[in-house]
């Protein structure tokens, strides 16, 4: 896993919300990881920028 690549891509999307995510994808991030980033960022836009990390079934593991 390219941890730095993922971090850089997420940071880029947060700082520049208008960029088209597909255009900044490079070979450093796997397709599956890129899909996760797309999903999280698009939820972020929908919720107005407040992404909450759900507790869900992990609640008992807090």
């Amino acid at each position, binding site marked *: *896993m390219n*941890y730095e690549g993922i971090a850089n891509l997420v940071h880029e999307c947060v700082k520049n919300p208008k960029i088209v995510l597909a255009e900044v994808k490079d070979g450093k991030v796997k397709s599956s990881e890129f899909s996760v980033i797309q999903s999280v*960022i698009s939820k972020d836009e929908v919720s107005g920028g407040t992404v*909450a*990390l759900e507790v869900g079934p992990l609640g008992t593991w807090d």
Partner: protein
Amino acid sequence: MNLQLDRIIYTKIDRILKTYALSAEMVRMIQTSLNADSPTGELFKWVHLTGMSCECTGGDVEAALPGGIGMEFFALAADIFDDIQDKDHDDLPWCRIPEANAINLANCLLMLSFEAIAAIPDDRVYREVCTVLQRMGITASNGQFQEFLYADSQQVSLEQYFDMVRQKSGSITACACKVGAILGNATEPLAELMAEFGLNFGIMNQIRNDLNDFLDFEKKKDFVSNKKTLPYVYLSHTLKGEIAGQFKRLTQCNSGGSQAFGDEEKQQLKQIAVEEGVAQYCTVMFEIYRQKAREILQAIPVPEKQKGKMIKLVE
């Protein structure tokens, strides 16, 4: 919540505690400490995780109890040591007794964990579970040691962070899942798959804890202790220019130093965290590890119904 199983667990734990004529005060502390940090009131989460893994691999949940109770004692010992080291969680029972007493309590729990697994009737299986528990303890201690070293480091990479979390947190959940699988008579490859699931599950938990604790200045001291949590490491890696300088100045504040970490500084940190995407990044990493955990479960060659409870953990 399985009340009947919880009653059986209580009875077995009670029997173990009575075996060595421990002092009433020690027994009371252990009983108070077990489940003390469960926010939802769910009891014996480690016993249940071990049991779920056992059932998933075709075993009976009662067969998993010696291993599960062993994990419950071991994990509690690890939590106590961790809170002493981090000086966290003032509200928990072991933080309200003198530190020396808490260390002694944790030591006793480590020994009790091996006492619990001694109830495994098959010698070969007992030796196997012992080995897994010992190796986990060594790995988790090494991970914790790494965490101390990183607290004194200027810069820690994301790679280093995830390696540390794999050892410190991932190893314990991996152990519970592997022990459960062994007690369910799983083949070696299947037990390894369950361990890998547990590893990813443990990392998910740690990411979520890191994010939730980062701005919890009331209960946690992560930031002022220079603890290299995921939000911290992410910000160290991504910030540039003036904002990087501001973050660095905040990291140099501590509760005892010349530059206090007061309300203004807390607000600045919160603003940086929001503007630079800390929650988004932690969520992405949480989801990536959740996906890995799900893929492992999908690959496990057992009927869907058998792995239902494990699937629910990562839904």
